């Protein structure tokens, strides 16, 4: 069992990070920490994605004419992770802008207080 974990160390790390991020996204009361949890969750998914493409002894996929033909790693997962990182930055910026407006409007970013304040105003 242990050498299995050591063999898939990247995937196990990614799952632990996903669990930490997912727990924080759901359980944290502070909105900013929820966004932090989301970022950790996304970083975990891209770590898992990138580690799937790795081949032992592989070289970075720059297909230059180096004479010999080296073993390249798989370019697809790193391309997907590249797109994913930029998408998650865009969403983080949007969430942080929302948090700023909420703070400006209510003066607090604790979810429980916000729900009470918003409920009072709603109807």
């Amino acid at each position: 069992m242990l050498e299995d974990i050591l063999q898939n160390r990247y995937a196990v790390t990614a799952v632990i990070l996903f669990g930490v991020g997912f727990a924080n996204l759901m359980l944290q009361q502070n909105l900013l920490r929820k966004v932090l949890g989301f970022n950790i969750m996304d970083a975990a998914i891209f770590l898992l994605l990138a580690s799937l493409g790795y081949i032992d002894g592989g070289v970075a996929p720059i297909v230059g004419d180096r004479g010999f033909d080296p073993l390249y790693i798989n370019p697809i997962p790193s391309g997907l992770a590249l797109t994913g990182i930029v998408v998650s930055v865009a969403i983080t910026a949007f969430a942080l802008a929302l948090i700023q407006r909420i703070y400006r409007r209510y003066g607090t970013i604790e979810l429980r207080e916000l729900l009470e304040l918003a409920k009072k105003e709603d109807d």
Partner: protein
Amino acid sequence: MRPFVENLPFLSIFLALLAGIVTAAVRSGRTAYWITTGVCAAAAAMHLWVLEYTYLEGLRFTYTMGRFLAPYGNALQCGPLQALLASAFSLVMATCLAGGRRELFQELKPGKQRLYFTMVNMLEASLLALTYTNDVFTGYVFIEISTIAACSLVMAKDSGPNLVAAIRYLFMSLMGSGMFLIGLTMLNSVTGHLLMPALAEAVAELRLSGDYRIPLTVAVGLMVAGLGVKSAMFPFHLWLPDAHGGAATASSAILSGLVLKGYIVLLLVLILRVFSVELLAELGAANVILAFGLLGMLAGSVFAIRENHIKRMLAYSTVAQVGYIFMGIGLGTTEGLIASCFHVLVHACCKPLLFLCAGRLSAVSGHHKSLRNLRGSAYRDVGAGLGFTVGALSMIGIPLFGGFVSKFYFANAALPTGMTALTLLAIALSTVLNALYYVPALLAIWVRPPAEDELAILGDTHAEDLAPDRFFAAASLLLILAVFILGIFYHPITDVLEAGVRLI
């Protein structure tokens, strides 16, 4: 050189995306509004042409994005089912914009109107892309586009509760797309492909050979759960009432009528094309979806009965109707999926009609939203009253309306499966519960209140609200017509659906 009509799906997606970019740079909100409505109408016309082309010749075609054939580059897959859904979504988007037009220009600040229409355009593009995509990762990217656009629609009205509702909606959606992405990663690592036809072969191979069985099951479960969270399946619907209840009329109509449907359509396409219905039943996911669907049908209606804020009541009824759709998927037969597709169409026409009329009714009664203050509001705007009545009766499932036909199809889809008694009981119970909150609402708007209350209400209605709204009348007429067509002439539509599901 392929016939020109096969370029239309790709052209409509690009048209919507480029229109989104152009409206951000346009100066005034009015021109942005007309660009957006024009693009939606043009997209609807294009998809009707594609529908006529694919249905009459009974074919489906794969449109490769660029020179590289299927497993190497992106691709779109177009069949009668996709064309019908895309044209219905575009038409309903155009009518929602027309219906909610007056309130939009009252509520939004002048500088920010054009950005609102950028969001609507991008939402339209992501809806079309989710319907037509043949590649799972393209589906994920357009899910992210629709997440940001939908959250911007929720918070467009800029009031405090909307901001809180928008951020709760954003966090729940991000949980959903996080689960979908990790499911997609596992599926890619187990099968090696991202394009749906290649994925389908690899998944079928895995099913026969039986290796990597656990990662395949977890990947299917995560993808279904991720899309379920995003389309407000029962246990994950907590964000929906605040988000849809508080938003502006046009936004809540678009959000509940169309945005939820994008994710459901992607789930249907995934189930039909990649994981076959039998695999879903084999892995046990079908029963889980059926259980959540049944619970959603009942719980959504129970919450709606307790609600007296008219928009939140309609939002809870959306949770119930999404429960119907997931019940259809959970039945595990192609008839169930056809019934779900039909109910997607019925709900996409009915719910925007209800939201637009509710918005109009509350506008004519001084922007109050609780049923007590809306008493007798139907007399102040008869068109809105009629529209609300048609929508409510269709939701309850009275014959001659769309809702009845979809319940009828759900019922006979449930017969051959083992869960017949349970499903029929749930449909009957849910119909009664629907009546328990729609009938009092109907009575509230049609029964004229005592004179002094009515004077109080009339006191705080502004003059221009009471003026007749031509755009709203046209939009509600079109949607009423759609509900009647779905209720009476439903045979051509169900034939297209059957051909579409067979050809998917």
